[in-house]
């Protein structure tokens, strides 16, 4: 039986700053997961990843990360992605500081 495709976002790190970025529906990049494009179709997701990989001047290490839809946009399903969109737990640094 074919496995079901779970929704994804395209993510990776920005080339210059190194921080976490997400692909948006208008082919741009955002620092905020809530603004990312949630990809629910596997073929479309793979195409979006290819587009990201074709932008080495923007993004390093692009990959598809699991996410789920919520009223506030995509949400992470794994704790690693939750840390990536938030920042470290020992200091108020990273996204939690920059986006607040």
């Amino acid at each position, binding site marked *: 039986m074919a496995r079901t495709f779970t929704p994804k976002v395209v993510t990776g790190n920005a080339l210059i700053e190194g921080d976490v970025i997400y692909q948006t529906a208008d082919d741009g990049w955002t620092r905020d997961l809530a603004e990312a494009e949630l990809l629910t179709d596997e073929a479309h997701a793979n195409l979006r990843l290819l587009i990201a990989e074709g932008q080495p001047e923007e993004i390093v290490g692009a990959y598809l990360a699991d996410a789920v839809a919520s009223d506030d946009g995509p949400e992470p399903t794994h704790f690693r992605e939750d840390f990536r969109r938030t920042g*470290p737990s020992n200091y108020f640094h990273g996204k939690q500081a920059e986006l607040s």
Partner: protein
Amino acid sequence: MYNYSEFDAAFVAERNRQFRHQVERRVSGALTEDEFKPLRLMNGLYLQLHAYMLRVAIPYGTLNSRQMRQLALIAEKFDKGYGHFTTRQNIQYNWPTLKDVPDMLDALAEVDMHAIQTSGNTIRNVTADHFAGAAADEVADPRPVAELIRQWSTDHPEFQFLPRKFKVAVTGSENDRAVIKAHDIGLQIVEKDGEIGYCVVVGGGLGRTPMIGKVINDFVSQADLLPYLEAVVSVWNLLGRRDNKYKARIKITVHEHGIDDIRARVEERFNAIKPSFTGVDLVLFNDIKAAFAPPAFRADSAAIYETAYKTDPIFRSWADTNLAAHRAPGYAIVQISLKAHGETPGDATSEQMRVMADLAEAYGHDELRISHEQNVILPHVHKSDLPALHAELKKHGLATANIGLISDIIACPGMDYCALATARSIPVAQQIATRFDELKLEHEVGDLKIKISGCINACGHHHVGHIGILGLDRAGVENYQITLGGNHTADARVGDRTGPGFAYDEIIPAIERIVYAYLDLRTDAEEQFLDTYARVGMEPFKAALYEKAEAYAAE
């Protein structure tokens, strides 16, 4: 202390110039990430979870005040005002941007420092006993030979594309404080018939497959040392499993071939290459040794110290835990704890770095050391200066009296920073320290080393912790395995796994149950955790850990 020669300075400057251009070419699109990655790794630049991370080598953990101040300046100017000291005596900056890194490397070069070979499949920063040159129990200062090895291994043409990374540690004392048996090569300086030489241990390492190193040669003379080391690395360079990165380290090569086979191959290789070593290394070694001549120790009364010790209980508590025996009369080795309860193990702010630099300059013959236990050492302080030094440390959150105690935890960055991590380490360390501080138990518990790694690679040395904690991802949830009875000293031993792991919110109570079980089981306050564990074994601890948890759950 060693100062760069013209050759060293020119080499580092040229590397920095090359790296600046490599960054420019990456940004312009002339280099792909696949092309750029090995170049940045050769210069210590990682891309982590939230940002780039620059790992700066602190050779054999030794710094002077000028270098420490420069590390503080770099933290302030290019990072978020702090640095993280690691289990390999390095410092890591967690938040640099790519465009700033060339300037950071130039700033390091101004004080004879660099980030070369702090990553990649090369010979990494050589580590050493953090009491080097000061310890009462040492045969000889391990830093000169560590510097010799640094020079030999830096940009060594044969060893730039090794099967995997390669780590060397040196101790000058029988009481190993450099964890030499958990390194690819561990060297212990020994004396035989009046001659100084080296006991060479190979094939140690933690990580996925922990191994305690084995003695390959119990006495290598100074004249034979570099050709012997070259022979070891050379034999492994050919035999090492390049087909499988999990089997590539020398510990697996030694395990698969057997130490006798490796010894024979090393001997053969040694005999072949020895004639090419003309003795220039010995001349160089003597120059290096001269640079590490001990400072002029002064002969003063320690009466001020004795008075403070008798009258000030806070000073006494700090002196009891944070001082170690110095070889010069009237002197002490000061260990500055970077483990204030609830803080991140190994982190120091720019301000704290400057305070430590000032204190080293004022009271410590301008020397500082970073320990693999993620603390800072002032190796040479006269006892009469200790009360003033302690008073200054207190003002800056640097006077925590907990060296060797339960809150003096080694913790890797874990999933708060590291891209490889499978769980967090830092908050677990913070909570353990805070909890036992609340219980006011840590002085009663005594010598107890907790070491935490956030993944199987074991940067937090969990295998050799008296209590080791390994954070894993179990079905999308953080889960922590516990090992007991590990030992990082000359009697190195890999700890035993207790059984199933614990969830993030269960791990602190679990550690508490182990500690209470120890307090119940020990014969008296003199019997340390490791001795109790050796005497009673795993079962009573297992019972406390799992049966009591069930009993609590049933209530």
